């Protein structure tokens, strides 16, 4: 699709950036001390901290990723919503109050509270940096992907813009400004998601044959093999037409390109087999990248302005239950019931490499019952639950375990417990956070399903589903949702940079290397560290442009859950825990989960571009092995070193 920068979006976006920067500048005077810079003096009101939890946690992966996944694959995206929220139960019932009681600035403070060990500070500081960097990459990549179509900037410009803005926010006022940016972002995100959901329900459902640009996708046939064998078979559908010469790989996969001379139109068609042995011809779309870098859309050079060749937006229903063509306004339950009884036109893709080196990606319509889309198992990550292999099912369990355990192990979330005055406030703010986050995750199902039938989906970019859904409503809403999505990245990235700079200053420099720093120097070093981490994040965001965002978030959750949770839980609930046990558990959890990921099928396929069957580990998600391994390591090492302590 061709994205033209929307002036309304640009203006609202600039207002958002100016407001966040102005707020940071204004709050700068309140955070001169290290206690102010890292923990906002512990004076953030619990309600504001609770909404800031939502702002911190609801990252680009939550908002753009989950909505996009539901829009393209149905219920599977909702599994992430369920898993991400479940993690907050661990945070509230197990971690919240002890974290506030035991720590001061960083996650390592809490783990080290009983031991005063340089080894713990060093290990946990490194683990904090590793998890934060893994989490930073997808946020920065997401920022670039978002800014590119909205503001007309290139990917690297978008990443650099986000990086520079975040560095300014963090350097100017540390945790104080970060908290208020996250509070505003969290509140706005939930509010506008609610507005969008109400509009989706009010619009109801309509049967269509194409997207919002008015293009009607056609279905021809049925045709038989005998008919297709005739050289002029296209003329039974188009008066004066002929088959275009295409690569052999096209016909092997059942694709044809037809030139309609009467309308001077070139279209792509896919054969869809019918049970009686005949075929339907469904109009498809193609994107071809030639070896010289030219991009062709449906066989013609891709346009740069509206009206020129581009992919048509998709996302529509081909039928509703009982032969209806529209439903009118619906309530939250009847909306799901109507989707269940409807047929949705999905647009899967497949790619081929042609003899001349060109790579063509086909996007073709596939009519799918709504009842199937409201079941898990459509997305490649979750397809395993319908497989006969036990390892595929264990992979699913492992992912859901990592989501459950990962939240309460993310350093940038945990340090938010230091910004309130006491344990009661820590608990109350977590309850507010669960309320806001849970409510948002309920809305994600409606946002995703609304996008699925909005007629505005871009087949090449799942992340743009939510902003494009808003665009199908009106331009102002699109501008607001886009600006909020951008602020979403700002809020999460600033929290991550702050957690990392705290780990560098307190855990590594002051505790491990015994650097004596006064209050002023601590803040100054932390600001330098923030600039450094921000710069690294910008570089990584540019280098990993092509890597899947959701995939990287999964890495961060698995590493966090494996490295941090066993040590934290055992330190709280087992008196026999020793400092050697903590160090060993964090090290083994971090190294084993990282190694597992790097040796997995997903990484072989998506990162190395190798044959996935060469992967060494039996399934891709490490949590089910590496989280228990962390617990086991801690118990064994603690028992071995207990007497010495």
């Amino acid at each position, binding site marked *: 699709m061709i994205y033209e920068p929307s002036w309304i979006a640009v203006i609202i976006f600039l207002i958002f950036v100016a407001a966040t920067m102005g707020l940071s500048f204004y709050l700068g005077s309140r955070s001169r001390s290290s206690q102010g810079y890292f923990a906002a003096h512990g004076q953030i009101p619990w309600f504001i901290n609770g909404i800031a939890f939502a702002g911190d946690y609801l990252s680009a992966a939550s908002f753009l990723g989950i909505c996009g996944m539901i829009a393209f694959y149905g*219920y599977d995206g*909702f*599994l992430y*919503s*369920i898993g991400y*929220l*479940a993690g*907050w*139960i*661990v945070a*509230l*019932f*197990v971690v919240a*109050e*002890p974290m506030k*009681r035991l720590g001061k600035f960083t996650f390592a403070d809490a783990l080290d509270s009983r031991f005063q060990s340089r080894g713990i500070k060093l290990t946990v500081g490194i683990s904090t940096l590793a998890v934060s960097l893994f989490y930073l990459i997808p946020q920065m990549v997401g920022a670039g992907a978002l800014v590119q179509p909205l503001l007309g900037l290139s990917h690297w410009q978008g990443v650099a813009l986000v990086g520079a803005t975040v560095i300014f926010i963090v350097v100017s006022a540390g945790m104080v400004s970060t908290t208020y940016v996250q509070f505003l972002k969290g509140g706005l995100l939930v509010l506008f998601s609610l507005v969008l959901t109400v509009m989706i329900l009010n619009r109801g459902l309509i049967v269509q044959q194409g997207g919002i640009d008015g293009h009607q996708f056609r279905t021809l046939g049925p045709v038989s093999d005998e008919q297709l064998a005739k050289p002029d078979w296209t003329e039974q559908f188009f008066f004066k037409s002929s088959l275009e010469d295409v690569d052999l790989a096209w016909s092997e996969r059942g694709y044809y390109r037809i030139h309609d001379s009467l309308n001077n139109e070139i279209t792509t068609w896919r054969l869809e087999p019918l049970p009686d042995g005949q075929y339907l011809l469904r109009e498809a779309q193609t994107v071809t990248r030639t070896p010289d870098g030219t991009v062709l859309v449906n066989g013609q050079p891709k346009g740069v302005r509206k009206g020129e060749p581009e992919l048509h937006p998709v996302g529509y229903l081909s039928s509703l*239950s009982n032969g209806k063509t529209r439903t009118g306004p619906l309530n939250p*339950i009847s909306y*799901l*019931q*109507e989707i*269940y*009884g409807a047929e949705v036109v999905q647009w899967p893709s497949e790619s081929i490499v042609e003899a001349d080196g060109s790579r063509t990606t086909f996007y073709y319509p596939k009519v799918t019952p709504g*009842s199937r889309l*409201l*079941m*898990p*198992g459509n997305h490649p990550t979750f397809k395993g*639950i*319908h497989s006969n292999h036990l390892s595929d*099912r*264990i992979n*699913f*369990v492992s992912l*859901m*375990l990592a989501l*459950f355990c990962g939240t309460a192990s993310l350093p940038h979330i945990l340090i938010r417990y230091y910004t309130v005055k*006491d*344990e*009661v406030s820590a*608990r*109350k703010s*977590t*309850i507010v956070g*669960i*309320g806001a986050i*849970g*409510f948002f*995750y*309920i809305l994600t*199902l409606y946002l995703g399903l609304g996008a699925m039938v909005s007629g505005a989906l871009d087949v090449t970019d799942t992340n743009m589903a939510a902003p494009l859904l808003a665009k199908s409503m009106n331009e102002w809403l699109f501008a607001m949702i886009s600006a909020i999505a951008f602020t979403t990245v700002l809020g999460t990235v600033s929290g991550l940079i702050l957690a990392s700079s705290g780990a560098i200053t307190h855990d590594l420099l002051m505790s491990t290397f015994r650097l004596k720093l006064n209050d002023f120097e601590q803040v100054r070093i932390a600001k330098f560290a923030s600039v450094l981490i921000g710069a690294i994040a910008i570089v990584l965001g540019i280098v990993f442009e092509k890597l899947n965002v959701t995939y990287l978030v999964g890495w961060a959750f698995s590493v966090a859950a494996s490295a941090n949770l066993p040590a934290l839980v055992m330190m709280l609930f087992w008196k026999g825990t020793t400092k050697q046990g903590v160090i060993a558990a964090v090290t083994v959890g971090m190294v084993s989960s990282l190694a597992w990921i790097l040796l997995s099928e997903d990484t072989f396929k998506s990162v190395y571009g190798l044959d996935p069957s060469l992967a060494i580990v039996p399934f891709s998600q490490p949590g089910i092995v590496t989280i228990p391994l962390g617990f086991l390591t801690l118990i064994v090492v603690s028992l071995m070193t207990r007497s010495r302590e």
Partner: protein
Amino acid sequence: MARNAKIGLVLFVVYLLCYAGFVGLNAFSPQVMAQTPYPQINLATVYGFGLILLALLLSLVYGVLCFFCGDRQGPAS
């Protein structure tokens, strides 16, 4: 605060069992999730929404129980 920890652990186990049931059914008996306990709403949807609402409910219950068991008596408790 030890009492809060006990309340938290009990509620945690309640939620963990419900979550484990959801994951287990999806992984090892996904066809069960296709059943429709409510007209045209399948178990996957009901259970998914149920887990989110249960999290909200249990967190409120925890807040209320902690209030009556300790917070109300002031910081000394």
